[in-house]
C-alpha cells in the first residue's frame, strides 16, 4: 500500500516565540525552523509500516515556502521514498491546506494518509479531520497505536478518560499523537542518500484552490504576564502563605 504523509515546517519547539511589537504576528525572522514534532511521528510510523512490508511507498508532501524543501529532505532521510512540495508564499489556513491535500490525494491515490494531530504553531488540530471530510473518508485521530491488516486499520486513540480503539476501512485519514512512536534520527549516510531522492516542486496556485483566508488576524498579543511570585524557605512558610491566600 501507498502512504501519503503531509509534513509542516514550523518554528522549532524549543524556541521561545516573540510577539512583534506592532502586534501583527510572531517574529519568525532568523528563528530556527524544524519539522513539526507530530509530523515526525507520522513519518516514522509510515516508514515503520514500510519496514514491516505493509507499505510499499511513502510519499511526503508539504505546502508552504520554498525552504520547506528542507523539511521534506528530513522526511526523505528518515525513509520516505519521494516528496512533493506545493509552493505558496501565503500561510494557508487548515481548510486551504486540506483542499490542496485533497488534490494531491486524488493524484496520488494513497491507501492511507498519516499525519500529525496538530502543528505547534497554529495549534489548530484541524487539517486531518478536514481532509477526511472533503474526501468523505473515515478518520481516526490522536492515534497512539496503528495496526494495518486486510485493507483495514485498527487505531487506538487517546481520548479524554483513556483510550478508544476504532476500525477504519482503508483508505482513511489517521492523525497521530505523541505516544505513537519515538521518531528516529536521520543518519548521515541517509541524509546523503536523501539528497538523491526526488522532490516534485509545483505551484500551489496550479491546483485552482482558493487560498484566500477566511479569517482576518486583527492582532497578535503577548499573553498576560503573571506577577512575580516568591520563593519560600520552608514547608511551614508555604502552608502559611497558602492559608493567607485562601487557597487551602
Amino acid at each position, binding site marked *: 500500500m501507498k502512504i501519503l504523509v503531509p509534513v509542516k515546517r514550523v*518554528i522549532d*519547539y524549543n524556541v*521561545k*516565540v516573540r510577539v512583534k511589537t506592532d502586534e501583527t504576528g510572531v517574529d519568525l525572522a532568523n528563528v530556527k525552523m524544524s519539522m513539526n514534532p507530530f509530523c515526525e511521528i507520522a513519518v516514522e510510523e509510515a516508514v515503520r509500516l514500510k519496514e514491516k512490508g505493509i507499505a510499499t511507498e511513502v510519499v511526503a508532501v508539504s505546502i508552504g515556502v520554498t525552504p520547506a524543501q528542507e523539511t521534506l529532505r528530513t522526511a526523505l532521510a528518515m525513509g520516505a521514498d519521494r516528496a512533493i512540495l506545493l509552493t505558496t508564499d501565503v500561510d494557508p489556513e*487548515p*481548510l486551504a491546506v486540506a483542499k490542496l491535500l485533497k488534490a494531491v490525494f486524488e493524484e496520488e491515490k494513497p491507501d492511507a494518509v498519516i499525519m500529525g494531530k*496538530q502543528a*505547534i*504553531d*497554529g*495549534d*489548530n*488540530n484541524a*487539517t486531518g*479531520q*478536514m*481532509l*477526511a*471530510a*472533503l474526501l468523505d473518508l*473515515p*478518520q481516526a*485521530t490522536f492515534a497512539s497505536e496503528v495496526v494495518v491488516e486486510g485493507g483495514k486499520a485498527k*487505531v487506538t*486513540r*487517546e*481520548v*479524554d*478518560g*483513556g*483510550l*478508544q*480503539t*476504532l*476500525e*477504519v*476501512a482503508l483508505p*482513511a485519514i489517521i492523525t497521530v*499523537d*505523541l505516544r505513537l512512536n519515538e521518531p528516529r534520527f536521520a543518519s548521515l549516510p541517509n541524509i546523503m542518500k536523501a539528497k538523491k531522492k526526488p522532490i516534485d516542486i509545483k505551484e500551489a496556485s496550479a491546483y485552482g484552490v482558493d487560498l484566500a483566508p*477566511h*479569517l*482576518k488576524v486583527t*492582532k*497578535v*498579543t*503577548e*499573553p498576560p504576564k*503573571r506577577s512575580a*511570585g*516568591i*520563593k*519560600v524557605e520552608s*514547608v511551614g512558610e*508555604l*502552608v502559611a*502563605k*497558602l492559608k493567607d*491566600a485562601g*487557597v487551602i
Partner: protein
Amino acid sequence: MTVLVYAETDGVHVKDSTNKAVTAALAISSDVHVLTTADAEGAAKITGVTKVLSASSEALSKDIAEAIEATILPLADAYEAIIFIAGAAGKNAAPRLAAKLDCAFISDVIAVNAPNAFTRPIYAGNALESVETSDAKKIITVRTTSFAAAENGGSAAVETITPAAPAHSATFVSEEMVKSDRPELQGAKRVVSGGRALGSEEEFNKVIVPLADKLGAAVGASRAAVDAGYAPNDYQVGQTGKVVAPELYVAVGISGAIQHLAGMKDSKTIVAINKDPDAPIFAVADFGLVADYKDAVPELMGAL
C-alpha cells in the same frame, strides 16, 4: 440567529463544560440550543438555553466524528454558529463539520469579542491571536477554562431527533477508560501534578496521589512523567494534553517546559516544589519551594 452547542457528557450526565460553552454561546446570540446525546433534562436546565435537541445512537455515544457530522449537517442551516467543547470529542468532530460547510474552523477560543470575532492562543499559549471571520457560519471549539459556567435554573423544551447514519465511518471496537474517584482533571478546583523527578510509577503513586487525595485535588502529570510510564496518558497537562486552570496547581518535580506551562499557566495560584532553583517553573510559580520533594511532600502532608 441561533447558536448550537454540542454538549459534552459522561454518557449519563451533561458535564459542567457544557454550561461553560453555553456562556460562550450567549456571547454570540441570546438564542442558544443544545444538542446532547445523553441527559436531555440536565441540558434543559442550563440557564439561557432555549431548546434542547436530544439525539442518541451507539456511534454518537462513542463520539464517532462521522456520526456527529451526519447528525449536525442537516440542521446546520438554522444556526449561525456551532460550538463544540475543546476536548477530544469536539476536536475530533468540529473541523470535520467545518470542512463540510466550507468554513474556517476556529479552535480553542478563549474570548468572544463579537459574534464574528474571537481570541485564541497560538504557539503553545505564548501568543494570543484575535481573528475575525468572513464566513456566515462559525464553527468553533471553546476552551472551557476561560468561561464561567452558566447556572442551572432554566427549563428549555426538549425535542428528540433521529440521527442519520454516516455513509463512510470508522467503527467502534473497544475502549479502556481510566477509573478514578478523584475529581476530573479539567474541571478540578485543585490539581497536583508530578514530573520526571518522581522516577517511577510506584513513587508517583506513593507521593503525588496521596497529596492530591489530601487536598481533594485531581492528579496531573508532565509529558516526561507520562512518557516514562509513571502516569496514564490521560493525566498529561500541557500544549498537547489537557489545559487546566484550577484555583491551586501544585507542580512537584516538574521543570516547567514551554509545552507544560501552556497547559497550566492560567491557574490562579501555582506552587512549585523543585530542588533545582533555576527550574523555569519558578518563573510562573506564585510560591516556590526549593527542596527535594522527598522531604517536602511528607512534611506538607503533615501540615495540611
